[in-house]
């Protein structure tokens, strides 16, 4: 199971606390983790990535193992620690602006 940490407002939207766990079949990449997240929490569709283009919303970033993965490929394998659940995959919202 892959652990995912969501920003506060998306935790409220999905009605979850803290972090969630999603079951990813096959390679664990940003794309497959978000696909699994949205399959389990479909109200999140369109919130982290644009519905149509799939691009990351500009005020959000992807982190794991203390690295910013936001500008990398959606299909590159995430660190092994994320795949095993030892480390979470983080979707971080910008703290900027009102």
């Amino acid at each position, binding site marked *: 199971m892959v652990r995912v940490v969501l920003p506060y*407002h998306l935790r409220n*939207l999905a009605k979850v606390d803290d972090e969630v766990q999603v079951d990813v079949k096959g390679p664990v990449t940003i794309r497959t983790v978000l696909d699994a997240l949205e399959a*389990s929490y*479909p*109200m999140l*569709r369109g919130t982290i990535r644009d519905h149509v283009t799939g691009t990351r919303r500009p005020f*959000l970033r992807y982190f794991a193992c203390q690295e910013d993965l936001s500008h990398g490929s959606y299909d590159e394998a995430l660190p092994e620690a994320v795949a095993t659940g030892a480390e979470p995959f983080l979707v971080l919202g910008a703290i900027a602006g009102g």
Partner: protein
Amino acid sequence: MSGVRVLVGTRKGAFILTADGKRDRWDVSGPHFAGWEIYHMKGSPVNPDRIFASQTSGWFGQIIQRSDDGGKNWIQPGTKPGEPTTTPEGMPMGESNKFVYDTSPETGKPLTTHQFYDGTAHPWEFKRVWHLEPSLTDPNTVYAGVEDAALFSTQDGGQTWHELAGLRGHGTGPHWQPGAGGMCLHTIILDPSDPKRIYIAISAAGAFRTDDGGDTWKPINHGLFSQYIPDPTAEVGHCVHHVAMNPSRPGVLFMQKHWDVMRSDDAGDNWREVSGNLPTDFGFVIDVHAHEPETIYVVPIKSDSEHYVHDAKLRVYRSRTGGNEWEALTKGLPQSNCYLNVLRDAMSVDSLDPCGIYFGTSGGQVYASADAGDNWAPIVRDLPPVLSVEAQVLK
């Protein structure tokens, strides 16, 4: 006894204010959707407990929410037709957030560009829903005005949305440009006497009308004069802020423009200025008394750069003659050191007798008058900046 429910959208959540018919003691519930911009909430005229909300955020995009119990509980209604409305675990589906411009050969129009602030060609991009207008006859049908300007509708209670592409694609689109808040379709008026007639308005393209249910549209801006655009009497390009109509007088429209208060007596084919003795004719809101179709209300704002009330006084102006002759309504409103703005969807009337008027300000107050504007009092004073106000009568 009848009651009133006032739906308030703010920059940081939604609030629902309720009172009985006396309208002097109010209950406040909220914030719903705390932390999100609620651009608009509106209830179905057929079933007032069914309310739709546009929940939006620069971080997370657009969410459509629906309540079927007057705002106590909310769901995201989206799902594809034929599919279950929830996951096997009971989670609501997210398709209600999906607004995709229709470019299909069968029903759509090609995506063109529109003008950007600097006059360059800019692609059409969806940002948010500015206004929701439930059908007058069907609780499952709602129209949505969006940014970048287009008209969408749902026939399944908000689960899925489809563009009425005839508006975006009717031909003048490449000449539209955004107002300061974005190129938004902010006004939708459904004609109660003709189900195929709809009026809409866009900042900063102007007003448009369909007479065939949305397939074809025509600009209805003849008579508008906008000195700040290259051709002040152009067919499109006017920054219309809001349009209002009394349902008992379909075809008589009142408009608050970026400067000028206007009136049309022929369904928008021709407009004439009725600013009259207003201290300033810039503003955003305009509304019509529920029972007196010639009584209209505006809140004059000092200028297009000073977005606050004139003379540091919060004054609603009322005309009982359909424009030109205006009186200031001030009882109960601050008359000094007041620098508030009232945004275009932030005024509403109820249909009780006497007619109730409500408006919300950039300072977070929601003011109410239970006597058509003669006296005012704040329902609440300290909300986040108010984006929209809609009043419902509960029987």
